[in-house]
């Protein structure tokens, strides 16, 4: 008796005209995680050869999909060389793919008779496969396990634990896929991912360090940055190495500064080594819940090892891209590919599939093949939308060790280069962000929906924070191109978010300047864990959006506390505005900001915290004490905590 048909991913088995097919539910109107192919059907003839394509968001063409996807590019390439009717690619990739569902999708895909399986995975593994290796894991048992690893091996303990668990989970999944493919004797092509090493940076704080280690580390961080700015690259290198020694290599920022210094010194091999170490450190669940990119050395080695073990054909993107520091030419953000990146990666896959099917001459290598392949078909509007999406994604997830504006402005410029009409979508985006309601309720979104630059959830349309960096980048770029929008944007912001007479609390997460700071465990709230009503800063500074018309002084009333009494400095738009004393208990102060420091619209208000007091010889002891009793714990020292930051206009009365 044959097995009853099973769903393939979200494609449900149906009987249509007497034929068993698999039908996709209607796509979400703002985009969803899956390819838009409506119906999948079993193969009926030898040809075309059927390639089933699996993977995560990178494989699904994040920010381009559904207008352009790697699967579609691959199909066009295969057909260009192998003949129009000889190949088809079935796109089963999905954003947020996980290993158990990947295996299940591969297994159920056999119902539609693939001839080749292509797996493009490994970009999500740390976040999605080992989330329990975290001091914030919801399960008490997981916290205790974390504590045990921390106690036995120090800060490297949980990193190793996460690695072991990942090797176990991924190894098992890849073994299962080998069995599935082996049972029907079809080849598997495994794509080892690459990441953006040049442009994507991950600024994270170090964990609690012995003695005055934290203060020393941050002092070195500033020193390395200063030296890089002054062109003293050897000095920067020395400072960064000292940081690595202090944090035992567990902090991504130290590696990034090293990578920057090596790059400026022209040693790209060392720069690459440091940048890869940055990726490995950043993706450790030890330090940060949400990090990017995640295709670590470990993940790539797991894939290579599986390819060796099972005889999978390996397409190694680090080799294909052949760049010591792959950059924005190939990547929209940390791991999602540009059109060029997709073209190149899929060409390497196509070469292997064509070789397998005997349709590529033996002497032709990738370099020889590339000129014969058609460029990806994409409209200027779709290209521009993806590039604007890259700017948005960077605005929401990038925390560089240097300024963020250049990369955001680069992608805004690139979007306008692709299609100048996208300026209207940019202004609609600002209008939606400025509105006192979710974008879905705004007239701006309505306009965008009917434009050729339709933004979806993937493009960060749903973001519910002010998006200050993005607004500033768009304004800067449009102004540079001769479109005077600054005043209009400022008016819109002031209209809806200008300071209220009764005071506006800038500690509302909506006003946090760097939305990514919310991803630091100290700042963000975790589901199922005790929630926090205060902002705790894990970095020596914290910035807020202050929106006003710039015509009046502003009264600021911070309520803050520090690990030990000290002085908090205040800056507005990068200019010092004074300082106030704060204590270990909540301290409320009144503070006046002169209108001379303010400009109409967005103003960046920054609090600079004093260095935290020195820790003892066992700085992680309090962490262990909590974790061992099952209580979530913060590994990072807190520089300062904000309860409220009320700002209100100070009316000038009398003479």
């Amino acid at each position: 008796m044959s097995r009853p048909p099973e769903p393939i991913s979200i494609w449900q088995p149906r009987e249509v005209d007497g034929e068993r097919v698999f039908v996709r539910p209607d796509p979400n109107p703002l985009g969803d995680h899956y390819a838009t192919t409506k119906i999948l059907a079993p193969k009926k003839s030898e040809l075309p050869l059927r390639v089933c394509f699996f993977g995560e968001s990178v494989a699904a063409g994040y920010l381009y999909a559904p207008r352009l996807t790697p699967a579609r590019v691959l199909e066009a390439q295969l057909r260009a060389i192998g003949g129009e009717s000889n190949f088809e690619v079935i796109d089963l990739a999905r954003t947020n793919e996980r290993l158990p569902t990947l295996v299940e999708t591969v297994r159920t895909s056999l119902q539609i008779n693939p001839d080749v399986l292509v797996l493009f995975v490994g970009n999500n593994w740390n976040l999605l496969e080992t989330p329990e290796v975290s001091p914030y894991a919801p399960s008490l048992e997981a916290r205790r396990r974390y504590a045990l690893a921390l106690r036995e091996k120090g800060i490297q303990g949980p990193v190793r634990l996460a690695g072991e668990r990942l090797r176990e989970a991924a190894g098992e999944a890849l073994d299962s896929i080998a069995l599935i493919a082996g049972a029907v004797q079809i080849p598997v092509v495994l794509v080892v991912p690459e990441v953006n090493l040049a442009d994507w940076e991950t600024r994270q704080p170090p964990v609690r360090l012995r003695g005055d280690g934290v203060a020393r580390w941050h002092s070195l961080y500033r020193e390395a940055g200063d030296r890089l700015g002054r062109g003293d690259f050897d000095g920067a290198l020395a400072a960064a190495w000292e940081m690595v020694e202090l944090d035992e290599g567990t902090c991504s920022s130290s590696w990034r500064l090293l990578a920057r210094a090596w790059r400026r010194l022209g040693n790209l091999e060392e720069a690459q080594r440091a940048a890869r170490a940055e990726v490995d450190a950043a993706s450790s669940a030890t330090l940060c819940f949400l990090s990017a990119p995640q295709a670590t050395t470990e993940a790539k080695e797991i894939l290579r090892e599986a390819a060796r073990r099972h005889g999978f054909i390996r397409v190694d993107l680090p080799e294909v891209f052949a760049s010591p520091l792959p950059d924005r030419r190939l990547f929209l953000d940390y791991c999602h590919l540009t059109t060029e990146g997709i073209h190149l990666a899929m060409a390497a896959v196509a070469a292997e599939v064509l070789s397998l099917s005997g349709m590529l001459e033996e002497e032709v290598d990738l370099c020889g093949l590339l000129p014969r392949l058609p460029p990806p078909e994409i409209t200027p509007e779709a290209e521009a939308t993806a590039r604007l999406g890259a700017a948005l994604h960077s605005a929401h997830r990038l925390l560089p060790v240097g300024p963020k504006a250049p990369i955001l402005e680069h992608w805004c410029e690139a979007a306008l280069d692709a299609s100048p009409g996208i300026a209207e979508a940019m202004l609609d985006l600002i209008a939606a962000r400025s509105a006192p309601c979710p974008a879905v309720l705004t007239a701006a979104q309505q306009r965008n929906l009917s434009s050729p630059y339709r933004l979806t959830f993937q493009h960060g349309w749903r973001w519910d924070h002010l998006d200050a960096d993005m607004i500033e980048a768009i304004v800067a770029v449009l102004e540079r191109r001769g479109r005077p929008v600054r005043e209009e944007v400022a008016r819109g912001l002031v209209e809806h978010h200008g300071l209220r007479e009764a005071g506006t609390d800038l500690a509302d997460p909506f006003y946090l300047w760097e939305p990514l700071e919310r991803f630091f465990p100290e700042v963000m709230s975790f589901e199922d864990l005790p929630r926090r009503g205060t902002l705790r800063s894990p970095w020596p500074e914290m910035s807020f959006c202050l929106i006003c018309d710039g015509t009046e002084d502003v009264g600021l009333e911070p309520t803050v506390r520090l690990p030990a009494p000290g002085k908090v400095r205040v800056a507005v738009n990068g200019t010092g505005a004074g300082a106030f004393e704060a204590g270990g208990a909540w301290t409320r102060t009144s503070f006046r900001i002169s209108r001379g420091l303010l400009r109409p619209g967005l103003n960046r208000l920054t609090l600079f915290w004093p260095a935290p007091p020195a820790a003892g010889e066992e700085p992680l002891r309090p962490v262990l004490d909590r974790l061992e009793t099952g209580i979530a714990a913060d590994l990072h020292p807190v520089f300062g905590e904000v309860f409220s930051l009320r700002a209100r206009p100070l009316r000038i009365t009398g003479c």
Partner: protein
Amino acid sequence: MNILGLSAFFHESACCLLRDGRLVAAAEEERFSRVKHDPRLPVSAFRWCLEAGRIGILDLDAVAYYESPAEKLSRQLWAGLPEGAPRDRGAPERAIREGLGWDGPIRFYRHHLSHAASAFLFSGVPEAAILTVDGVGEWATTTYGVGRGTAVEIFEEVRFPHSLGLLYATLTSYLGFEVNDGEYKVMGLAPYGEPRHVDRIRKLVSTGPGGQYRLDIQYFDFVRGRRMFSDALVDLFGQPPRQREAEITPFHEDVARSLQVVLEEILLEKVRWLHERTGARDLCMAGGVALNVVANGRILREGPFERLFVQPAAGDSGACLGAAALAHAELTGERPEPLRHAYLGPRWTADEVAGLLAATGLPVLDFRSREAELLETVVDRLVQGAVVGWFHGAMEFGPRALGARSLLADPRNPEMRDRLNRLVKKREAFRPFAPSVLDGHAADHFDLDHPSPFMLETCRVTSPLDLPAVTHVDGSARPQTVDPETAPRYAALLEAFRRRTGCPVLVNTSFNVRGEPIVRSPVDALLCLGTSGIDALVLEDFVIDRAMLPAHWSELIPVWIERQRSPFARGLSAISEDLYTFV
């Protein structure tokens, strides 16, 4: 003197701010988080309470918590905590200190004492008997006491596992409804049935001397099990438990009726004993079972007390009021001011709403400074059979919409109940809708001789008008009397409707769709408008008709809301709807 009352970590977490004895703010966390019955630390409600009081954390004098964590833990340990649950009596205090940032004094009060104080200390009567009934607090499930001046004395209690609340919750679960949410549905279902299973229910619970009663624990599994009832209960009724959303049969109606009858019998018996014991003229009630409005109606009509005060947020959310009142009485020796109304939540000005509406681009009708025209416009729509979302003033505290976040309709319309259910509420057809009636006209339409501002008792409908949309199958209704002093615009709307139609009554049901908390903000109201069949929305001084909405709203807003929901809201937490969660 600023005291913050706090209920949290079970279900319906909430905060209130009591300033110099006056309640200035109170709100449930679910209204902010959009997670129905949100049990988590009410961070948003806490911050909003301070903002509403225009104070900071340094201006608070004390936090008053509605439970004794140590005593609660002892009961939890006795009952056997689920695997992996924390055994940490310090957890609530740690969460308050770390989560809210509060480093000042915290006063802990027993759960039922908090309930008792929430009713008596805000009742305005100098002396009263007090009855609290719910599922369980620390150990107590029912308490009897007396209040005099600032003192609240509890002199008898029924202890876990014997609990009328858990009895009701168990049968709620057996009948296929969610524990801690579906009890209202069982009460609404009861009039459709006959008391055929009273004898069986009496096997589950038997009364004892004084205030005591006992459950026959063989029929229950909530103490250490993963569901509320045991196989013995299923055997007793001879029918398998109803599955969620399965058809409701006469058997289910009869069980609901029988349960309600037995509950009322026991409560009446205990209330009579309480009256004998205290000699008081007034009775104050709180606890989840005090939201059983049918039982409340009988207690008032057939019981020995002259007056009944039920605190409008009688469930756990409202216990924060009691904790705050107890702290206030201890710290000042004074009693808080009586609770005159439940409009204690967030409010928005017409100008703020105007700014929001401008961003939406909707072609709204603007009635700023033209209230009379606004009301006539709303009446136009009501008499045409429209379901109107009514958003005005400060949000209500407690589970009832009382004319601030309400859906309104014409009660004379025989199709209105079905229409409301089909287009908006999407809830079970058997559940009745409640009426609001203008103060001074209540007695002409209902068997009601006293104000009922909080919609917490039922009575017979005696109206000369046919009011099918608000009259339950047994001829009863659960009216809210609307006082022009406390709800002037809502009262004016009722008056405008009366002038036009001769009917001073409107259907008043909560402004939400099934599974969602009541709306809090204008944005919530617009999102609800976009996902339901509401015909028109009144947002303060503005009217928005459904025809004004852009086409994409109905398609995109549900997607948006789903994406906005946290994993917690999507049911990914450890909390089960099938068990009265003790964690």
